[in-house]
Structure formats: C-alpha cells, structure tokens
C-alpha cells in the first residue's frame, strides 16, 4: 500500500484539447483505480468475511 497521500499521485491533466469535465473524470478514474488496487492488497491478507467480522467493513458495497 502506498504510504503517500493519494492526492500526490494524480495523473497529469494535459489532454490534447482541454475539457474540464474530462479532467475531473480522469481524476475520478485514477482514484477508483487506486481504490481497487488497495482492495486487492487487503484481500491478499484477509477474506471479505474476516474484514467484515473484524473491522466491520462491507467490501461488497464497493462492487455496487
């Protein structure tokens, strides 16, 4: 898991033709990728049932 704040790893905002909405969508997509990668890291060491039982986190909600 990266130990730097997520905001430091944002993708460069340099589209060929500037689209402000696309800039925001790219950031959101990048954040989602980081989220998914960290979930994979957690699932390497714990099952979803264990995560829910021990920490109370319902990872199935992230599939919605």
């Amino acid at each position: 898991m990266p130990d730097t704040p997520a905001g430091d790893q944002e993708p460069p905002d340099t589209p060929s033709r500037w689209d402000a909405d696309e800039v925001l969508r790219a950031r959101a997509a990048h954040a989602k990728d980081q989220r998914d990668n960290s979930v994979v890291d957690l699932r390497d060491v714990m099952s979803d049932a264990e995560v829910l039982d021990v920490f109370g986190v319902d990872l199935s909600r992230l599939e919605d």
Partner: protein
Amino acid sequence: MDATVAATIAHGTRNQAVDDARNDLNRLQLRAVEAGREESRRLVKVSNINQETGQATYRPAGRVLRDWYLHCYLNGLRERLGHPSVVIDAQQIEDTAALLHRLTPETEPVQALRAVGVLRNVANADSAKATVTIMASLRSAAERRAIQHAPDGRFDSDQLRVHITRHWYQRCYIDHVEAATRSQQPLTPVTAAEEHQVAVALASRVARQLVAADGTVMVTSHGTLTNDLDRAVARGQVGVVPSTVGRAFDAPGSDDMRTSILNGWSRASHAERGRWALEAGIADLILQPWDQLTGDHQNALVGAWLRGHGRPVQEIPFHGEPLSRPPAEAARLMFNHQKQLRGFEAPLVAAGLSDKLGSGPLAARAESADYARDTPNAIKPPNI
C-alpha cells in the same frame, strides 16, 4: 447604451454569476457531505449481530474506521472543491492503523494498515466521483441561471444584448467553479480586460469573439491580443520564449541588442533601410547613418526591429473580429460556448448525472433528481 451603463451591467453580471456559483457550489457540497455520512454508515458497521444468538456487540474498530472514512472523505471533498482542507498524510495513516491494531489485537499489523488504506482510498474515490457529479449539475445550473439573469424582455428586448449578457454570465459562473475544482484551462480565467470588452460589445451592439476555438481567451489581462507565444506557454511548452527577450533585461543582453541594431542598420542596403523605415512608420526618413538620425526616428526603428526580431507582439491592442450572425449565435460564438441559451428549455430539475462512472449511492445522493425540490432557495424558473 451609455458606456458607463454597459460597464456597470458587465461588472454586475460577473459579480452575480460568481455569487450564484459560490452559493450553488456550497449547497451541493453540503448535500455531498450528507451523502458521505450515509455512505459511511452503509460501508462500515459499528456493531456485530450474532445471527445465532441475536446478540449485538459493539465494534470499536468499526467506529474508528467509519470516522476515518468520513474524515478522509470530507477533506477530500473540501480539497477538490477549493476549500481549505487537512492533508491525509502518511502519519495519519500510521497513527490510525496503530489505533486500529490496538483495538483488534488478534489481527496482524499489516491487516490493520491495509484496512486503513482501503478506507482512505475509498473515501478519495467517492469524493472524486461526487465532484464530477457536482460539476455536471453546476453546468446545467449555469445555463438556467444565465437565462434567468437576462430574460428575453431585458434591455427593451434587444436580443443581442440579452444573449451577450447570458453568455457572459455563464462564462463567469463556469469560470468560478472550474477554478474552485482546479479543472480550469490555463489562460482562460476571466479578467477585467475581458469584462471591459463585454461592456464595449453591450454599448456598441457589436459582438466580437473573445474566446478562441481552442478555449483560450483572445484578450490578455492587459487588454492586448493573445498570441501564439502566450498559448504555447499556457500549454506548458518550454523553449518557446526567444532568448533575445530574456537577454534584453540584462546588461549584456542590451549590448547584444544594441549591437545588432547598429550593425543591422549600418550593413543594410539602401532598399533594406527603406523597408525598415517603412515598417517603423517613417517612410519619409532620410536614410542617414544611425548617429545622424533624430531620437524619435531611432526609437521608431528600434521598435520595428523588436517587433520583427523576437520580442512578442504583445503590444497589439485587442480588436476582435465582429461576428455578423443572429444575436443568439453571435453571443455563443463570442465565448465559444457549445450551445445557444434560448429561453427556459432545460428541465426544472437538475440534470447532468454522470453515467460514465456508474450511478452509485454518492452520485445519486450528491445530486438527486429532486434538486429543485430539496434544495433551499432552489433555482426556480421565471414567471412567464
């Protein structure tokens, strides 16, 4: 329309648009915060119910993680919407993971650390998605408010002035929200020079293009014409500024420029000197040696040399091309907007939910379909 009146209208429209944008952004941010609170309750359970015995037990780890999620989400949202925020740094992550591990001693430290990381990243993703939804809603709101600000009957139904004012409002509104969300294209912020050009257009009833097809504003903050060098610098290109411009501010550079001009004049043929003088606007100049020219003539020749040898033509005053189109189209082209702002065609409820990232609970709640009903002082259509 008097020039002073036009300037007042342009300035007042800009201020109104910024105020409305700020208020709308704050309202949607509050709704997104509420959506985050609900999501935290759905995502993290603070109690454990034994299905066999029916006994409920409190889960302190869940409480820590729920608050951690909300902390990350709120600050992520504030940061994305241009407000002061707490940076979620590595120290906070470690401290939270240590606390979580103390509450769950049966777990490995790495499990606690990764759980904290997941919640941080989930919150970050949720705040990013909420920002996309908020921005889409604000774009719709900008159109409706622009039409509301300048209804068809304003300015004695002068449609050119009506549409210019609408698009100017929309421009200022979107400028504010794009600046707040840090999604603004470089070289596009609204400036007083641009506002002045809008006032000129309102007074003269001549629409001139202010925003180019590439989205850059054609008038600089100094009221001069934006040139290719400005655009290249705005795009982040390096090495586009001529080196002679930089040297012009240093003593050695000044000598180089002076030497270049003196040598250039002395070596130029009679015909070349004549062309140089013509470019300097002193066509009747007697083509004497440099030291025999008057000071005014020398200055004019230096100016012509600078214009042709590397100093950008930033001194050209802005004179946009008149747009000879129907009023709605001329106003649209003036600001390079995608569509005209005709009447109150948009639905009363907010539109613009982004479908590309899925609906999701936060996307739905950050901007519900009943925005007009649920939001205090909601945007209402004008009485027709």
